[in-house]
């Protein structure tokens, strides 16, 4: 009985797309969304650190698993998102919650 169903469903539809994940420790990682789970943990492939390589320890890393709780933002491609559908889904979720 919480919103994770909505976000999980939403991120599932973005699997295979390129996203930028900004973490709470200010690290921004750009990569292809490989998978997501119900806790919104994210797996990215072919990653690169977007900021001017302030984080050299990431140079050799190609794929990563990010725990959902440390994510601050996920930047998405705008044309891959159907905002109307998202609004509808949110309304449905709200209706469900009320019941």
């Amino acid at each position, binding site marked *: 009985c919480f919103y994770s169903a909505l976000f999980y469903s939403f991120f599932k539809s973005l699997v295979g797309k390129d996203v930028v994940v900004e973490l709470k420790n200010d690290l921004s990682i750009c990569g292809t969304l*490989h998978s997501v789970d119900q806790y919104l943990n994210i797996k990215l492939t072919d990653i690169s650190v977007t900021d001017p390589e302030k984080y050299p320890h990431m140079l050799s890393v190609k794929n990563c698993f990010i725990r959902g709780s440390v994510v601050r933002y996920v930047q998405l491609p705008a044309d891959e998102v159907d905002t*109307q559908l998202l609004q*509808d889904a949110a309304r449905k979720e709200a209706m469900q919650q009320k019941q």
Partner: protein
Amino acid sequence: MFRFQSLDEDCTLEEEDDGLIEEEDEIDQFNDDTFGAGAIDDDWQEEHKRLAGLDKKDELTAGDDESADPRSPLDNRLSLPPLGFSSSSALQSGDVEDKVSEGGLAESLARLILEADPAVAGVGAAERPAVPSPGSTSVFPSLHGLLSQSTSVQQQQQRLSSVAPPPAPMLSYQQQQHLLRRGTAPIGQMNSHSIWENSLGFGPVSVPPGLVTHMEDSPLMSIIKEVGLPKRPPRSDEGPDLSERVPPPRSSSPVIGSPPVRAVPIGTPPKQPMSHTLNHQIHHPTAVHVRAPVQHRFPAPFPERLSPNTLLNIANSPLCRSPFPPRVGPVLSQIQRAQLLNSQVAGFPRGAPGLLPGGGGFRPFFGGHPPPHAHRMVPPPPLGPPNHTPIRHNTTILHPQHRRLLSQRLLSRGGDQSRPGLDRRSRDPYSNLMTPKEKDWVTKIQMMQLQSTDPYLDDYYYQNYYEKMEKRQEGERDSSSRKEHTTKLITPQVAKVEHTYRPVQFAGSLGKLTVSSVNNPRKMIDAVVTSRTDDEEKREKQVWNKRRQILYTVEKMYSLLLEVQDFEKRFLQVPEEERQTLLEQHKANTEQLCSALREKEWDNRVSDEQCVMIMSVRKGKRLVSRLLPFLSTPLANAVVMAIARNFPTLAKKDKQDQVLFWLVEPVSSVIQSLSSSLLTDLLQELQGSEGQLSSVLHNKFGVTLLYLILSEGERMQSSDPNCQLMDDNRWTELVFSVTRELLSVPASSLAPPLFTPPNLLSLFSRYVDRQRLELLQDKLQISALSR
């Protein structure tokens, strides 16, 4: 306060077999549950005194005393409770042994008291002057005092009589006298060794002290002992059977509300085929729920599986290489290998780890083609370029459309990459840590959490997104290649089980038990949900500003609209019986929607004001555009009329958003179903008062709307020569005025429409002369060729 019970049940001696102990059962069962079977409720002071007294007695001890039964102090200590209990049971069982042991315990207690408290001795002396020796005098009454103390504890049970039978204390007194004079004591035997032995003897139920050490090795046994405790058979000489009062063992609490008991609990890792040698060590005969058998991994036979560490040690130690693989392989490689699924990629199967390919070698997850084994013992991986293989997705859970997209993407990306790392991957030291079975098990647990009772609702966004995408793609393709069936996502659906908790009630008892468990968690707060009624909402709304009020209305309508939209889908899914109710609900929803458009409840007409209000908000326009197809025809017509009538206002409000075009499609469908008279009316409304038409023409949507109307009229005329459009002159006049306006308006201010209907030219050709027609043509850029 002595807890005789614990002493009793821990001792394996005969005197514990006493009916009166049952009464203690209930109390001390909980004690044992809480503190464990080995809990000793001893007074540390006594222990200390006993130990301290040792030092004195030890000096007095002769060697022959060591042959004495180390248990005899135990006897002494234990005999007191039967002393108290057997006051009644002596009447029943008349166990001679009891009396003997009673005396022993009494005697030891007496000794303790003697050593301990002179005050007690003093009291005793006052009470019984008749006793010969002063020392022993004190003992008897104090003993008696103790007895009465102990009996008062037990006096809940009425079976206990407080009468201490005369013979027993006398015996004990005599014994005690004798012992005292002897001066030696079984206490002398109570050196530290015997103490610990005794305390060990207080351990688990009915276990001879010799077995204790073995017991302590496996904690599981102690759990079993705990669990097994209530199952003691009731004593034959008992009246009411007290074992019923013992709570049931937690491992098998039934229907009450706890999750179903499984033979193998959910969290059990899969059984490994090679660990037979370890199985006998695991005791799980009776404990159903207690613990899953722990499988040991690393004592595995050599060739099958090795941890990376052992591997590397083997590999590198004789070769004196650095133990760390210089390459940083992708962490996900394991998963990638594990997920060779219905991938449509002409993928490269990942090489198996290059160790001894035993029978338990790696097998891909869903039975894809087996990867080639690299038969190598020593894997010294050279440093190479980073990995380029495409990464597998678990595609079974994806929509087929999604799957197709992904594979396309992977193909396009992976096609132009070299393949240098093939051999390197085969020597991944982190491979083979889990068997496919284990991976399966982990995935199963995770997927179990995702099972939903209503996948359409829970996964709304994803499913609809891909449905829409499919429709879009279908539309883009030629309609000739239209598929017979659209691909659908099949999601696993768990049946919704109603978990209403009904409290357990025993027959004939008052009240109900409440057992809280996973399925029925305890209520923390007694909160009552009070939802405010609509009236109150309205009253509160008046305080807000207008905009918020509009938004609120829009949202309410939206929820109704969504229900209405989903109606069809749900109708198909729902079984026969429920369809009627669904239908009724649907009707109610639509009714509510319609009434929302009206200003007053009883007024049947669509309120202009309301419509305009709703459409002044961006959301509202979207709402109306989606709502229009669901409205009944008269209502829909009315709405469209309202739009036309209030066009300037709408246009003004839309200046920022520019989203009136959302209305084009639904409005056009409405227009096409209009009758001719209505169409004329509509055109009239659109033209409206003076100057409205010019504003219409300035607006993109307005122009579009105009064109729509005109083209519809034209279609009517051309298709049906008897159409009533020409019956009165209104239409003609209106068209004339439109053309006049069109010609007079400067071309720059004329907004380009969203689309130009093809038959406009033919329309205009009816009404205007050639010259004007050409002018119009130029202005409006209508091509002469009709498509």
